[in-house]
């Protein structure tokens, strides 16, 4: 039984890590608190849903379309709202609080536009649901695919950030904005790319989630919460931390629910969230604070 649970934890954790990675990119590079991240996941989910229902395309093929759509939407947001807002001194002074409010507005808009267009009903589709058994556990194929895809993207990201020039540039930007500009990193372009990757990851996560769960216009919100829990666990701006934090949360949630019951899932997630915020707002893996 516990191998089954462990797999379930890994699957959940890999999705959490994927979503958190995207959020971390957006927050880390531009200090924008994207509380609409879950809604971009939701958009990805709907793209996959309509892909299979209207055009009979498998979600795996719909994934690139979802990624492109969510990335484009993110870029559109950037150019229409934030580029203008960042020039205002008052906005930038409290950029985190202000961006939180702006993204809140965005999330409300996205949720309600989707509800208006497609109704608030739960929808789902069947995809690769055959069970495979191994090692005492049995899982449907779609969940294994989720684990493989999400897991690969996460690992690829960690390698990318550690090795590639672009990855290094992004990390530099996350750590020290002004210094990054001084050493010649093209800030605007790197910001844009980070945005694309960040939102694109959310879209991909949405496609993956839609393979195994039902979707609705309001499905995104819990994922935003877990993404924040993960990046707070792992340290804001810390890429490897997001991966580890995501897995940790997957484990905590899955095993916690197994011991207490599904009704306690939310209590546990929010409980962890609050505990970490209170005790170590810089994350479990982040740098320590100088004590007063």
């Amino acid at each position: 039984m516990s191998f089954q649970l462990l797999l379930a934890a890994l699957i959940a954790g890999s999705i959490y890590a994927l979503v958190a990675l995207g959020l971390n990119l957006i927050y880390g590079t531009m200090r924008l608190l994207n509380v609409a991240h879950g809604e971009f996941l939701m958009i990805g989910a709907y793209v996959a849903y309509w892909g299979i229902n209207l055009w009979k395309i498998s979600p795996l093929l719909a994934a690139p379309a979802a990624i492109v759509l969510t990335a484009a939407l993110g870029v559109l947001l950037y150019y229409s709202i934030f580029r203008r807002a960042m020039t205002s001194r008052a906005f930038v002074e409290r950029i985190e609080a202000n961006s939180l409010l702006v993204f809140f507005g965005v999330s409300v808009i996205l949720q309600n536009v989707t509800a208006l267009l497609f109704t608030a009903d739960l929808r789902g589709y069947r995809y690769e649901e055959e069970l495979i058994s191994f090692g005492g556990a049995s899982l449907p194929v779609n969940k294994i695919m989720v684990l493989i895809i999400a897991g690969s993207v996460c690992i690829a990201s960690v390698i990318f950030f550690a090795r590639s020039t672009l990855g290094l540039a992004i990390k530099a930007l996350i750590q020290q904005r002004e210094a990054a500009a001084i050493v010649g990193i093209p800030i605007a372009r790197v910001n844009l790319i980070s945005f694309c990757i960040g939102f694109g990851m959310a879209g991909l996560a949405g496609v993956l989630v839609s393979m195994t769960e039902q979707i609705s216009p309001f499905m995104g919100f819990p994922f935003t919460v877990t993404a924040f829990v993960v990046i707070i666990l792992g340290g804001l701006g810390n890429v490897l931390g997001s991966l580890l934090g995501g897995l940790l949360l997957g484990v905590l949630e899955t095993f916690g629910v197994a011991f207490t019951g599904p009704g306690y899932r939310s209590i546990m997630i929010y409980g962890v969230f609050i505990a970490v915020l209170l005790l170590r707002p810089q994350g479990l893996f982040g740098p320590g604070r100088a004590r007063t």
Partner: protein
Amino acid sequence: MTLLNVDGVIRRFRGIVALDDVSFSVEEGQIAGIMGANGAGKTTLFSIIAGNLRPNAGRIIFAGRRIDGLRPEKVSRGGIARTFQIVRPFGNMTVLENVTLGVLYGRRRERSMAAAEARAREILEQMGLAHRAQHVASQLTLAGRKRLEIARGLATEPRLLMLDEVLAGLTPAEITGAIDLIRTLHRQGNLTILMIEHVTRALMALCQRIVVLHHGKKLFEGSPEDVVRDPKTVSAYLGATVS
């Protein structure tokens, strides 16, 4: 009498020793200076005295009572005011409101808004800021904001006024004006002043005693004339003894 006694203060930041067994004292009514290269630990020292930071070891004794580890508002109520190296005015409030707050919550703990405002206006007069009373603080020039920071500190009726590089970024004319102002405040207000400064002529002109910090250690302590002749200090600043 000795107003401030810094005794064996040590402060570390994750492996870096910012202050290493620093001790000195300031007599009541003195103007004392702290000098040292950037990174010598001067502002850290101020933050520890003012209660913004705790020392890892050592004591701070002010007017006979131990104050290390006290919260900043308690230290302020005990009679210490400080300015910040990077000024921190209450940006969206007017100059008058900034200083009024000092009167309301300083040692006088004035209850009446009207009385506090009246006293604040007096201080603005003294500091040459009266004509800017209704200006929003964030719109002042740097020199103005530095004056405001001093005014706000004065409003709390301190016994010890700690000035952190208040002359940085000022033009030579503004520096002369500031030196005169500090001298006047010292005389009229019965103040003890401890100032961190890089501007040497201000230290020479104002201070009766100077403490030199270097890499967190006290290098030398003495009168201004002695400081410029101390070989260790000269070597630290110039790299070699000047013969």
